[in-house]
């Protein structure tokens, strides 16, 4: 026999389960059907080889850019990026020393940066994104952490 008060409890449990199922389905749809995932790709790199990378911007197709970025205590290299009408930006980021965090303020670009790994992800800036954006380090990397920033300019 189910007590009346217990019924409320079971209704509540069903609601909670439905919310969890709903959220899980939405996230799976975006992640695996629309391929909207956070940064996941990484290639190991010998830290001594980082010096041989050429940090900077390369236009590899119309509106398609590849940016190689190196973080170190307490700066980003390059520290000023200019993109003309970007449609697709491929980031390849690593660190020379400790963990850093790569964030473009005002966008959803947010990724950890590891020494020993080159993280890779793609960003498609919306058409209305224009002007100067602030790039910061958002993972504590030492006493000069707050001095580690760069800029990204988008021209249309």
């Amino acid at each position, binding site marked *: 026999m189910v007590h009346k008060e217990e019924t409320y409890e079971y209704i509540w449990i069903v609601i909670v389960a439905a919310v969890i199922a709903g959220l899980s389905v939405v996230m799976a749809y975006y992640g695996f059907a629309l391929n909207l995932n956070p940064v996941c790709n990484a290639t190991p790199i010998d830290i001594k080889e980082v010096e041989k990378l050429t940090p900077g911007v390369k236009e590899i197709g119309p509106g398609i850019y590849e940016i190689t970025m190196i973080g170190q205590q307490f700066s980003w290299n390059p520290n000023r990026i200019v993109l003309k009408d970007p449609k697709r930006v491929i980031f390849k980021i690593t660190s020379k020393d*400790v*963990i850093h965090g790569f964030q473009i303020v*005002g966008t959803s670009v947010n990724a950890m940066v590891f020494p020993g790994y080159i993280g*890779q992800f793609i960003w498609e800036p919306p058409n209305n994104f224009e002007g100067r954006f602030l790039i910061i380090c958002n993972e504590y990397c030492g006493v000069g952490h707050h001095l580690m920033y760069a800029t990204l300019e988008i021209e249309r």
Partner: protein
Amino acid sequence: MRDIFKGSFEDIFSRINIGFAIILLALGGLFGVLQLLSRTPGSPIKVSAATYYQILTGHGVFLAVAFTLFFIMGLTVFMSTRILKVDINRLLLKISLCMTLLGAVLAAVSILTGKARVLYTFYAPMKAHPFFYIGAALLILGSWFTAFALFLQYLKWRKQNPDREIPVPIFGLLATWIVWIEATIPVVIDVLKVYLPMALLGASVDVLEARTWFWFFGHPLVYFWLLPAITLWYYLIPKRLGVELFSKKMAKIAFILFIIYSTPIGLHHQLVDPGVDARLKYLHTVLTLIVGSASMLTAFNILATLERAGRKAGGGFFGWIIKLPWRDPIFSGMILALIAFGFGGITGIINTSYQLNNVVHNTSWIVGHFHTTVGTAVALTFMVASYGLLTELFNRKVIAYSLARIHPYLWVIGIFIFSMNYALAGLAGAPRRTYDLTFGGMAPEIWYTYLKAGAVGGVIFALAGAIFVLIFILSILVNKGEEVRIFKFGNPHENLNEKHSVIDNIKLWIVVAVILIILGYSIPLYQLYSQGLSLVPPVAKGL
């Protein structure tokens, strides 16, 4: 069987632990205020960057790790001896006390002398003084002896009461310490395999390896803080109201969910880590949502208990709310903690929501989140429970009781202003942890508005914290007056069934937990080690 524990070793153990925890709370809180003011634009008080990151490390380690651990050790023994009424192994408690105190002192010395400016997450390859890691290891290994003492005490009680159901608070404490063991095995592996070789021998490390073991520990850790708070809600709120808990069964099911789901979910702290498979991140996300459901059960259960009590006192459809004892700080503090936890839970669901994590990761949103969870749901519950402990454990009368009544409200008002503004700043992209948020004048203006408003809230709840610490310390030092029994922790009014059900079969739930942990972590660890480690040298400069 003994009923009186006054002056016994068990009570001395609890007093030392809880007294030490309150000292850590005061120190960690002071660090918090200093760092808050230092990062607030336009503030006249500003420490240097090196000092800022040093006290930020202190704030995290002293409050999140040490204050919680010592308080929980003291509370556990205090409650278990009174509720189970069987002896606890004193030798284990003595070993536990010595090891944890030594560990805490070593870690504290390394932080206070500026040799461990690595923050509470101590991400490799940053290298701190070996004392920092040795202290952490001693603290954790030492705490295991308290866990063993509780488990043995429970088994002894079980032997004497073979069929009786487990009292809800004991169920909660067992869940707490089971989760602690689940949490700390990976961090002990991390410290022994990665951090000690790095700190002592200068060995190279793999960043992903260090982080995977760390977050294997880092999330169940938060349930270790939370479960004793929930235990206190389930136990003390009905007692304060003079009613039975709405559903003992649902309370225990919530604890079971924590035991089995709190660990295989750590990857949700690594959602923006390169080198972790998207499918595994998604799996841990879903498991995190399931553990979130346990708190939804708790919220329902406590609120239904309140309604039951309010209606019994003559309240109507909404009238029952005003019939509740809002002037009782232990009651009001715990309910306010529960309400704050509602916000903490919702922001937590957002944090774990896979794609959404990109928007909030490492922003001050996270700071807003955890000040409503560990900073209020846990800390405020422990603080108001201390008013009860002052009389029951320390044998003191609470001085300035009228101030004690205000303390929980002041705390929650401050936390609400602080967390709201820090969360909004985070949505606007403001980073957490950062000392100075000007970034060469390029930071958005709106950050400063939120940070300044947040600082007002921070100062308000710091004031509430100072009121609590002063009441606690002065009550112990000067108020040796007669005993005033505000309430009784011991002798639960619970009517215990003489027949226990499958819910009380703790061993079964441990087995399920182990299976889920293996399912949740075998593939990430296999991928990590099969792709080969990428070693980098430790870095001590710039810290």
